[in-house]
């Protein structure tokens, strides 16, 4: 039986990043993945022959540039194509669009309001300044704010320092953004209904709250924290789907000597004398290591792979009350040709290459939430759609297309449970709603597939189907994530670490928890090769 310096549980993107950094630093690392292929929710799956489905995540923006550079991901195959535009077909047959070019976008907004066209510039400038002030916090290890240890005090001072650099009025805007609803915040800037609607969707992605719920302002800000090629807030599509990204990280990890074991579910984390000493797989093998790092969700990590009795009561209470009830579904359609969206003018078909949002108004989005929040689903869901085959032809056979649909809301705790019949029913609701905007869609569907919150949990280990491993609301952010005093990637069990989205800075494809955790681990390792 081999002994490793580190065993990483879960080959999601953060687990892969973590393993790669540790391997790069010279540690002997084994990464164990339950499924046949690594990636976690960052995966591309050919569920229908010839068609590469995005069963989990679908776009990239928050991937930390340090991760791209330090793990040499382009060398290992990462190619990110920019997502150029956003279009929302509206219920009255009109459309609203956002282009990558400033003047083009202005023209689109001017169709509704000239005032908003300038407010948009000011809004973007304000968001850029706020993001600039807040971004350094993404790469910080959260301190313990109750502690008077020099290390914690220094870190709190650093956090304050980065916020103090902001102009007072921008700091006030940040405070309001963190506590308001996305819709209310946008109401203060704009009068154009469809503009407010598509902007507010960033506040609810993956979050079981409505656009009018306080706290969605933070989620909106969260989605502004990314960049591509140095361009703030740019979003992109990885060639080969997000699976292309996880594969490039896996290759980087392997290149640094990490041993990746797929089809290897971990059953138990082995704890001896209050220390983690390795894991036991479902097949009965043991992987012994100096340290165990879990990239999995906090719930399966602590409630399934461990004996809860091994954990301190308070920590267990925090894990148990962790809010991880998700509202998201992922639908993929294999299409026999390009569907028509009559609301989009023929001379602007380039917009089909970008994001297509089914978010015609703020009321529509709020109703979608109201329908679902008592254990149901949206009668007319919100959708963030994409046809990756238009950007990356390899995703579908020639002339055919796939459509990836991120859908909300459908309660993870659906009344009566997610039976096969319920899943099929909601899939029909999704297709019907989309067909309102694309009349020939149904004729073109060759195959359709849905991941409900239940499937997201079953397949990707995301408890409650929550794509961020738990809500990104104030009580679950920064030094509270996943438990106060344990937000620095450590756990109450010595040598057991967490490196996934259950930790700061939370969800989206960032690689930040994986990287931050690796740097913390390495700072404790006596001999290390500089990263």
């Amino acid at each position: 039986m081999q002994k490793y310096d580190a065993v990483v549980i879960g080959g999601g993107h953060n687990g892969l990043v973590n393993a790669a950094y540790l391997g790069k630093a010279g540690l002997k690392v084994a990464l164990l993945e339950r499924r046949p292929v690594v990636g976690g929710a960052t995966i591309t799956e050919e569920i229908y022959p010839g068609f590469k489905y995005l069963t989990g995540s679908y776009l990239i923006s928050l991937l930390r540039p340090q991760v791209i550079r330090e793990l040499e991901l382009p060398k290992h195959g990462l190619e990110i194509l920019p997502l150029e535009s956003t279009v929302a077909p509206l219920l009255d047959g009109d459309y609203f669009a956002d282009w990558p070019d400033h003047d083009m976008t202005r023209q689109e907004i001017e169709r509704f309001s000239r005032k908003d066209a300038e407010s948009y510039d000011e809004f973007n400038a304000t968001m850029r300044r706020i993001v600039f002030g807040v971004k350094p916090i993404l790469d910080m290890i959260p301190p313990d704010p109750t502690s008077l240890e020099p290390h914690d005090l220094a870190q709190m001072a650093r956090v304050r320092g980065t916020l103090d650099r902001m102009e007072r009025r921008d700091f006030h805007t940040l405070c309001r953004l963190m506590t308001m609803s996305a819709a209310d915040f946008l109401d203060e800037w704009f009068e154009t209904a469809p503009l407010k609607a598509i902007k507010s969707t960033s506040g609810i992605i993956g979050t079981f709250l409505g656009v009018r719920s306080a706290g969605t302002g933070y989620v909106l800000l969260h989605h502004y924290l990314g960049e591509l090629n140095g361009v703030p807030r740019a979003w992109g599509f990885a060639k080969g789907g997000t699976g292309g990204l996880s594969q490039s990280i896996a290759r980087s990890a392997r290149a640094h000597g990490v041993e990746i074991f797929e089809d290897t579910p971990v059953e138990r984390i082995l704890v001896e004398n209050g220390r983690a000493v390795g894991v036991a797989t479902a097949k009965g093998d043991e992987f012994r290591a100096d340290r165990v790092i879990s990239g999995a969700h906090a719930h399966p990590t602590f409630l399934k792979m461990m004996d809860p009795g091994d954990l301190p009561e308070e920590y267990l209470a925090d894990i148990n009350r962790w809010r991880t009830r998700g509202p998201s579904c992922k639908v993929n359609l294999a299409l026999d040709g390009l569907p028509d969206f009559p609301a989009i003018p023929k001379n602007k078909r380039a917009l089909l290459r970008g994001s297509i949002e089914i978010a015609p108004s703020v009321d529509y989005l709020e109703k979608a939430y109201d329908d679902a929040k008592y254990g149901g689903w949206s009668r007319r869901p919100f959708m963030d759609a994409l046809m990756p085959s238009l950007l990356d032809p390899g995703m579908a056979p020639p002339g055919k297309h796939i459509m990836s649909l991120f859908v909300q809301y459908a309660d993870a705790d659906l009344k009566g449970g997610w039976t096969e019949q319920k899943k099929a029913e909601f899939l029909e609701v999704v297709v019907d709603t989309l067909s309102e905007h694309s009349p020939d869609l149904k004729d073109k569907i060759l195959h359709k597939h849905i991941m409900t919150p239940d499937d997201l949990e079953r397949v990707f280990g995301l408890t409650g189907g929550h794509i961020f491993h738990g809500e990104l609301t104030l009580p679950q952010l920064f030094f509270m994530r996943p438990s106060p005093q344990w937000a620095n990637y450590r756990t109450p069990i010595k040598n057991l670490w967490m490196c996934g989205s259950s930790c700061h800075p939370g969800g989206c494809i960032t690689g930040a928890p994986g990287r931050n955790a690796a740097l913390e681990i390495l700072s404790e390792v006596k001999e290390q090769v500089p990263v």
Partner: protein
Amino acid sequence: MKVIVAGSDANAWACALKMKQAGHEVEIVTGGDGVATLLPGSPLSPEVASEFALGAVLKIVGRVGVSPQKKTVQLKLKEISGEVTPRDQERWPDFVRVMNNASEIWRGLFQEKLDVAGRWREFGRRQAMEVLRVPCQGLSELLDDWFESDLLKATLGATALRGCRQGPFAPGTAFLLLQRWARGEVFGRSKVGPGVLASQGEGIRIHDLAIESYSVALGRIESLRTIGGPELTADIFVSSEDPVTTLGKRVGLTRLELDTAATVSHWDARSTTAVARVAASEKWGGAMINFCSTLEDLEKAYDPTKYGGFSESPFAEFDSESGLLYVQHLGDEEAANKVSELCALHELGEVEELLLPAQIAERYNAQGGHLFGGERALWQSYGLRERLRRPFSNFYLCGAGTGPGDHGGASGLMCARCVRQPVATS
């Protein structure tokens, strides 16, 4: 300096008395009854009570939650009883401890001398973080974490949401419970009448006049114009009216600094709380009553208001001593019927008067008919409302729209503390 304070509530009086103590010449322009008269149960702040040696201003009356099926739950600081599980009863003291600690910190932010961060750390790591969680969470999040009894949760939720325009599912709504808890309003009620501060106002000239407007020039208020009375001049002007009425209506948006104008334009003072006057009742021994059933129903009552509609089954708080019923999320057409239904169901007798938000707005000069001068949500609280404290170099706001957000006088005291010699701007 000569100081004119506009307003008649405890905030106006606390500010006026404090400024008089500091040696200034102080006059009060009452402006008629303010919206504070609709909140006779609201206690004075302990700080104000001690500052002016008022003795005990709070009396403990307890709280009762009553469901439509007439099930009840009784809440006292020491214990809960009625429709509650033993597990909830066991957890109650710990909950009280967290809320009391959080209240101390919240109140401390508005006091001069307390080292808030230090006191917070003294709670110990775990308790300190529990305290920090409270204002960030949603009501349903907080209450579901602690308790399992529906009526208990609904009662605490309804207590928090009185006078507010949010639902319990939204993050940050636990902050509303914290605010009432900190003021002693969850289990207590005011022991003294509203005029108790006025009785200390010897030497303060009172103008019982309505306020029309303020005249502004070069970043200073020049005078206060009254209706049917003289134009009054002073060195310093203070107003306890809500920010939008004061700055939007009486000063005028065009005269404001742009940032102040923006803050005023964005000030959320929309209200969906109606106030009904029924007969005072001895039935519950003077307790505060909440008519509600589950947290989900509180959220359902709130939902239609997001689309300009109103609740099918509103929930309400009853101040049994004064006979005032605060009904949430009521609109125009169905309002009277719904209130009558509620009163009939709980045997409260005839509705003597029903004031909808628009009527409250008109009668009490309160923007939006809002009972607290503006929504007391996180995004309009603490530092974010202090921006409105001094909109002109010689003009201050001291009402519920600044400070902790109540009519208990703390904001008035804070205001008096920060009044300065005006700076020259020309």
